[in-house]
Structures are given as structure tokens and as C-alpha cells.
């Protein structure tokens, strides 16, 4: 299997803060790759570097053999990477269907003149957009909300809608930023099935997740970030028993708990609650 995404020595510096330092890993086509790490480890920053929101200070991101560093977010979508957001960012006042259609439009080519003159291509693409959007809403299990406003969907359904919207851009690689955050156990199970279905449909998945059950159950391979560095990478079982990982999640002196696989999941409970705080706490240097 060929490597799809290659992250080469990516470093991201915000002023004096080194959010990412010399990150290296590869994602192979057709796998589900889990990216975990405590809050503030730099997972979302890495997502932003891959999707063109940030240009990495150093290093390069390669996709399908071609460098994509420095490209704009919309160009990166065109190349075949799409993402969801940690804090849901739907178009709140568009219906679910319209949300997904905007994603599908990324693959369409109707120009201004085509739109003005109602070219046959526009007609074809409009029909395709609708068909595709309904199919994806069905695929993600939110078809019954097709004509509800995005913001009126429940939290879990909004997450699913966001995934549908990302899939509508027909990406080769989809980046899911904490898709299970805030979901109840039943919803999490449903999400796991959905992510597997996405992979089985031929889309490679890069997943940031806090819930250890979800990430360990789903991922083919896992990388662990801490303080902007990859501290472990490999198969889920290897990573789980890695003392460095346990230290990052539970702190030093907790190595006694190393044998219990569910332990990091327990730590997850309070990290999830402080997640909101740390997300905003890391913003101020950008805000000022």
C-alpha cells in the first residue's frame, strides 16, 4: 500500500510557543490512523497545518507524492483532503441538505458564465449535487433531517452532518477532529460503525480522538502527540503499553496502572471537560 499523506519534519511556531516540533509520520492508503495526545499536545494544530489553515514554520506535508505545504484550504480540498472541526462548524442557517451540497459543489466546475447562462453543465451538476447530498445524508444516517436547519439538529447529528459535508467533497483522506466528543455511548458506537463504513468505501481516515475505546477499537495504527512531539507510534496495543504514553496521560508515578488497557480512558473523563478551556486558552496569542 502506498503512503498517502507524509508529514516530514513539520514544525509550527507561534511566536515563542513551539506548538509542533519536528513531526514525522506517514499515513497509508486505506487505513484508519488515530492521532491521540493530551490537550494542548498540538493535534488540531497539525490538522490545521495539513489542511492549509496554517503554513508550517518548517517542514513539508506531502499528499499522494506531491507537496501541499503553503496551499490554501480550498486548494487542499480540491487535492483531496477534507476535515471536520473539533467545535462543530456547520452553516447553521442552511438546511442539512444545503450544507452537504456546498461540500459537493467543491467538485463542480460551473463558472460564473455557466451560472449566468444556465449552461447544461450547471443543470447536470445541480442534479448531481442534490443526488449526492441525499446519498451522503443517508450514508451518515441523517437523511431524515435533510430539510432541517443545521443548527436545529442534535449534537450527535450535527457531528454526523459535518462528516457528510466533508465526504461530499469526495476526499481521498478525511480528517475527523474528535468526532465522538460529547456523544453518549450509543452514539459513539454508531459513529464507530460510520467511520469503518467510510474506510470501507475507500476513504482513508485520520482521526483525532480522546475516547480511548473509540480510538483503540477503530485505528489500524496510532500516533501519540505530547508537547508537540510524536512520543509513540505504531499498532494500538504497542502504543497503549508504552510507558511514555502512560506518563503523558496520567503523569509520572502512575506507571503501576500500565497493565490496564482502559486506564487512559479514565483520564479522558477530566481531560474532556477541560478541553473547552484549553482550546480557548491556547488562542490568546492569536486573538491579540
Amino acid at each position, binding site marked *: 500500500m502506498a503512503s498517502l499523506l507524509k508529514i516530514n519534519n513539520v514544525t509550527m511556531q507561534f511566536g515563542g510557543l513551539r506548538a509542533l516540533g519536528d513531526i514525522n509520520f506517514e499515513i497509508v492508503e486505506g487505513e484508519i490512523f488515530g492521532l491521540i495526545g493530551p490537550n494542548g499536545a498540538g493535534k488540531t494544530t497539525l490538522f490545521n497545518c495539513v489542511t492549509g489553515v*496554517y*503554513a508550517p514554520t518548517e517542514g513539508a506535508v506531502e499528499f499522494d507524492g506531491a507537496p501541499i505545504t503553503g496551499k490554501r484550504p480550498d486548494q487542499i480540498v480540491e487535492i483531496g483532503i477534507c476535515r471536520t472541526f473539533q467545535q462543530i462548524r456547520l452553516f447553521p442557517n442552511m438546511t442539512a441538505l444545503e450544507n452537504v451540497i456546498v461540500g459537493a459543489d467543491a467538485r463542480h466546475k460551473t463558472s460564473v458564465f455557466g451560472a*449566468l447562462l444556465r449552461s447544461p453543465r450547471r443543470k447536470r451538476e445541480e442534479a448531481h449535487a442534490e443526488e449526492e447530498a441525499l446519498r451522503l445524508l443517508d450514508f451518515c444516517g441523517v437523511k431524515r433531517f435533510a*430539510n432541517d436547519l443545521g443548527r436545529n439538529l442534535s449534537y450527535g447529528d450535527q457531528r454526523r452532518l459535518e462528516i457528510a459535508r466533508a465526504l461530499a467533497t469526495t476526499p481521498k483522506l478525511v480528517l475527523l477532529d474528535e468526532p465522538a466528543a460529547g456523544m453518549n455511548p450509543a452514539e459513539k458506537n454508531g459513529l464507530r460503525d460510520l467511520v469503518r463504513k467510510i474506510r470501507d468505501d475507500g476513504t482513508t481516515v485520520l482521526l483525532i480522538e480522546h475516547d480511548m475505546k473509540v480510538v483503540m477499537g477503530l485505528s489500524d495504527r496510532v500516533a501519540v502527540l505530547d508537547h508537540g512531539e510524536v512520543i509513540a507510534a505504531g499498532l494500538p496495543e504497542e502504543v497503549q503499553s508504552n510507558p511514555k504514553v502512560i506518563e503523558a496521560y496520567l503523569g509520572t508515578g502512575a506507571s503501576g496502572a500500565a497493565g490496564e488497557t482502559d486506564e487512559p480512558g479514565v483520564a479522558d473523563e477530566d481531560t474532556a471537560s477541560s478541553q473547552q478551556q484549553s482550546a480557548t486558552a491556547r488562542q490568546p496569542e492569536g486573538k491579540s
Partner: protein
Amino acid sequence: MAQNTNLRVYLDNNYPKTSGRLPDGVVKVLQGPFALWFKIGYGRYLFGLLIMIAIPILIDPEIIPAFEGLDSPIPFIQGGFGIRVLVVTGIWILLALGLNVVVGMAGLLDLGYVAFFMLGAYTTAFMTSSGGDDQFHIVVWPNIASLPFAVLVCVLAGVALGIPTLRLRGDYLAIVTLGFHEIVRQTANNLTITNGSRGIPGIERPDLGFPESIGGFSTEFGVLSSHTYWLFLLIPAIILAVIMIRHLEDSRIGRYWTAIREDEVAASAMGVPVVKMKVLAFAIGASTSGVAGWIFAGYATFISPNNFPLLYSILILCAVVIGGLGSISGAVLGAILVTGLPEVVREASGGQTVFGFDPETGRIAIFGFLLIVVMIFRPGGLLAPRRRRVELSEAGAAEGVIVDESAGKQKDQLAGSATLTETRQKGDT
């Protein structure tokens, strides 16, 4: 769910129902002619042609030799003055349609829209003025030849304003566009080439180049000397603008604009070329005001910077807001109200004072009062587009959770956008 080839029809049939304060029946009646017009397929072009011919004849039957001596059957516009108001209204409809694209559809608050109008008018003046001293001439061309240039200059100005202001949004963009208007106006006020505040006289009227008579019909409207003849130019321009904007709205371009307005960061992550789409919105918006400027210059034959005060920028924005942000029919109605209403108030008062108050001088005040009333009872505008109607009616219906959520989202959006901009700048340097 049936598969439709026409997405708009699907959305029309399936959009969430509203429960606004004003019954939607009122909106349906007002929007009816518009909706009907777009429903009749290609027949609408024929229908448009009919409107184009019928309205000027209704307004001034004398342009047909057979109706010599007849006055218009419509009361308010009898006797010449009303026609002038109609021409101005037509120009304002064009302006409102363009501004509606920028503000209503793409969500870019533009407070200096009249600058484009002014550029269109001055371009025409430069190219066709034959009066006064020669110092401000560039060329003297027939008026009609200056139309593409007026539009081109406006589009380029739209792009020129769009590119440096792309990172700004909301209030900041409003201030910049306000400044842009003043820059354009003061430049025209101070340059010798524009003849300063004395303005440019002697602008040529368009000559459509018809022979003097066709089959017994006098075709003196080839040269647009009478006010009525201008409607032959304005109405097609408006119809064309409406069709063009509607087509854009119904395509991926229109959806992209909505997406940018809703959440710019998410839009760009979904493959929307935000920069291109914003510049496009500015350019499309500017193009209709280029046409409006060209018509205005030819109609007035004299222009000076005083013809383009800041108040006009505000009033056009008012027109768009009253009509309903993002609604094409709303923009048309808004423009009619903003230009027509003060004149109706003037006419109706007949020079008498009401409660010691002269409606003629106070008509802008009356108008301001009406604006407040409209905004209180119909915050989305008189003919709010479907999306806004749903948005506003539901915001009132379910407070609590939704309000909290959207507040949080907004905060997040601010933080996100700040970091985005900062890193972009970092990337540029």
C-alpha cells in the same frame, strides 16, 4: 423524496416552515409576480419584453403617435414630474440590486457603494462630454460606446477594493468602504481633470442609432431626449440584472456566498475559494452600479461630486435592508420605497403643514420613522428571503439553548478567525 432536476424547486417545496409575526400570505402576494415570472420558463423573456414596452406606454402614452394628447392613466405620475421620479427609481433599483449581492448574499457590509455608481458616471462623462472647457476630455465618443467602459471601470474598482479588504469583515469592512467612497468623492472634488466641484457638463445622451421612422412610427427615442424614453433603457437593464443575479443565486456561486456569510472558516475548509468569491461579489455588485452610473450620466447630462453624497450610500443600504437582505424582489421593492415614498409624501401633502410640520422638508424624517417601524415588525425586511425568514422566526421561537450555542459559536469563530488571519500574514511575509 423525489429526485428533482431543479434544486430550487426542491428547496422551495421542502424548506422549513416559518411562523413569522406577519403572515407569510402577505409576502406571497408581494413576491407573487416575481415567483410567477420565474416559473413560466423561457416565456419569461417574452413577458419581460412585454413589460418593457408596456410600462413606458402606460406612463406616457404620447410616445405612440396615435395616443397624442393622452395623459397617463396612473394618477401619481401624470404630468411629467412622475416620470422623472420613475427614472430615478429605476436607477436606484439597479443600485439596490447590485448592493444586495454584496451585502445580502455575500454578507460583506459595504457603506460606500455609491462610489461605484460615481465611477460609472464619471467614466461616461470623461468619454462623452462635449460641453464646457476642454480640459477634462479624454475622448468624445458616442454615449453608447462608453457603457462597456463604465461597467469595466466599476468591476475593476470592485476588484481593487475587494482584494485589500478581504481579511476584514463586519464593522471593519464597513469603515473601509465608507473611506473608499470619500476617497473617490474627494478625488473628483479636487482634480482638475474632473473639473472639481463644478462638475462635468454637456454629457452626450445615448443615440441608439435607429432611423428616424420605421414604418410610419417615429422613432425619435433613438436619441433618449424625453424622460420616458429612458425607461426603454432602464427596464431592460433591470430585467437583465434580475435574471443574472437570480441565476447566480441559484448556482454554486450563490451557495458559496451564503456559506461564506454563514461561516467563513468552515466554507474555506469545504473548498470554497473565499477570496475569489468575495472579489466576485464585489465585482458583480459594482457592475450593476456601472450601468446605473452610465444611465445617470447620460440622463442628467451634468454630474458633479455633489450628486453622489454619502447619504445615498446609506439610503441604498436602507433600501436593501427594508426590502430584505438577500432578496432580489426585496431590493426592487426597497428601492421603490426609498425613492418613491418621499415623493409620494410630498405629493400627498400638497404643500400643507401637518401638525405644524411641513411634510416636504420633513420627508426624510418620516421615512426614517417608517424604517424603524418596518425593522421592529419585520426584522428580516418586507420581503425577506426564505432563509432569513426561517432564521428569524426560529430565533424568536426557541431561545434558551440555541441562543447559548450560537453565542459560543460566535466566540469560537472570532478566536478562530483571528488566528487564521495572523498566520496568513505570517505566511505572506
